[in-house]
């Protein structure tokens, strides 16, 4: 029997999923608040449409209900690792641009960055319960230094936060799927076996 099928592993998975769902809910709420602050402080229009930005993981997915538990975890982990790097870059740019003039925005960005890191850790723990374990971060290099104008950076930041808010909703749904007893990661086909 695989380690992920043992009763203690099942309990650990359920516990991690429950905590992860709560963390995703809190993260979403904080990101939505941060979006309001960001739009206001950066002088943007809240309804501005932002095209898909390179390097920002899109939460949109087709055939979501057909994904295996492992696929969900891997996609989530890749996304939150990318957001961790993107938010760190935004924080750096914000400090360079405004210095200490807007400490509130900086603090809010830093708080969300912390939650993103915590959530990534949750996902890594869940993957450790699987036979695969979490992938290394070799491929997840930080985004290259930005060559964008100030306005383009602001729009990009808006895109990052919007997509992160959407990921937080998706992640809670993903974890609920994973937490289902009959559809836990261990009972789903592994990534190698899935079509």
């Amino acid at each position, binding site marked *: 029997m695989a380690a992920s099928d043992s009763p203690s592993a099942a309990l650990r998975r359920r516990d991690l999923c429950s905590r992860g769902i709560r963390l995703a809910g809190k993260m979403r709420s904080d990101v939505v608040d941060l979006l309001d602050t960001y739009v206001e402080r950066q002088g943007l229009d809240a309804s501005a449409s932002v095209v898909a930005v390179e390097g920002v993981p899109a*939460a*949109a*997915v087709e055939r*979501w*209900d057909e994904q295996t538990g492992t696929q969900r975890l891997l996609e989530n982990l890749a996304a939150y690792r990318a957001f961790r790097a993107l938010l760190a870059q935004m924080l750096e740019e914000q400090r360079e641009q405004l210095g200490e003039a807007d400490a509130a925005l900086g603090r809010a960005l830093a708080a969300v960055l912390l939650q993103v890191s915590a959530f990534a850790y949750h996902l890594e723990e869940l993957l450790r319960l699987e036979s695969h374990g979490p992938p290394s971060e070799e491929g997840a290099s930080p985004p290259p230094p930005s060559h964008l104008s100030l306005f383009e950076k602001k729009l990009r930041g808006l895109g990052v936060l919007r997509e992160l808010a959407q*990921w937080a*909703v*998706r992640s809670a749904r993903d974890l*609920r799927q994973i937490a289902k007893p009959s559809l836990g990661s261990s009972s789903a086909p592994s990534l190698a076996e899935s079509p």
Partner: protein
Amino acid sequence: DSHIQYERVGADVTMKCGSMDWDAAVTWTANGTDIDESHLNGSYLILKNVDLTQSGQYSCYEGSSWHLKYQTYLRVGTPPKEPVLMCRSNNYPKGFYCSWHLPTPTYIPNSFNISVIHGTREMVCEKDAFPKNRCHIRYLQLFSTVKYKVTLTVTNALGKNSTTLTFDEVAIVKPDPPESVVAKPVPNNPRRLEVSWQNPSSWPDPESFPLKFFLRYRPLILDQWQHVELSDGTSHTITDAYAGKEYIIQVAAKDNDIGTWSDWSVAVHATPWTEEPKHLTTEAQVTETTSASTSSFMPPPTTKICDKGAVVGSGAVAVCWTAGLVLAAYGVLFI
């Protein structure tokens, strides 16, 4: 030949009698009734400032032969005003539906065309058989930040109009109200009511997409509602009901994370448990029995009964004497 002719309310309409010359002798009828010659200009029929009542079949006959030369069905109506469009997902994450209507009737046939665009992709909104002014779409993607743009165009013979809605995937999520709401008194608890309900049957996966609920209740005699928000479970016990008062109770639902609250459920009524009142005649009998028992256990007469004012009947006098003799005997013993 016969055909349909559409005209706007208030328009002036001129009908020619087919290929007949202007000065030909003709007779016009409207729904089989001859039209007065005052409405004719030569062989042309002139209808000024038409209204809805003038819709009908108009026929033109050659004067002497009464051969039918021309027939038309006049439909008086209006071009469409901007339609009212609504889109909603009550079965998230499966899809959403859009429904529409015209704010005022046109009195002539209308056709509706709906287009749904998500980013660069055009999606097909499948028309429902019933009701006719509704169509539904399956979500091809979930968790998308790209907005949906829905455009409805209504066209009739007199004009066209359209409206566009733009929305996020999550903004239109609104479940149907909870079903099977039941409220019951709790035995031996005069201030409690137990309320239970079920998820709306249209919500496809409440386990992965759990709903939260809002319950409101008030006694019928008051206007102020009490509210309780419940993040899980499909039951709740009200513990602060007014004893003996009939209550009205409703429940609403919302996805835990996104969208808006449903409409309120069908209202249910319930009254908290009350103790059964005792029967009145039984109480009276208990009171009389108690009085009779008490009088049989009255203490022996005292000196008070010997007071002149308190004496009633000859028996009391004998008692007084007896009490006096006893007291006298005691007095002799202690001299």
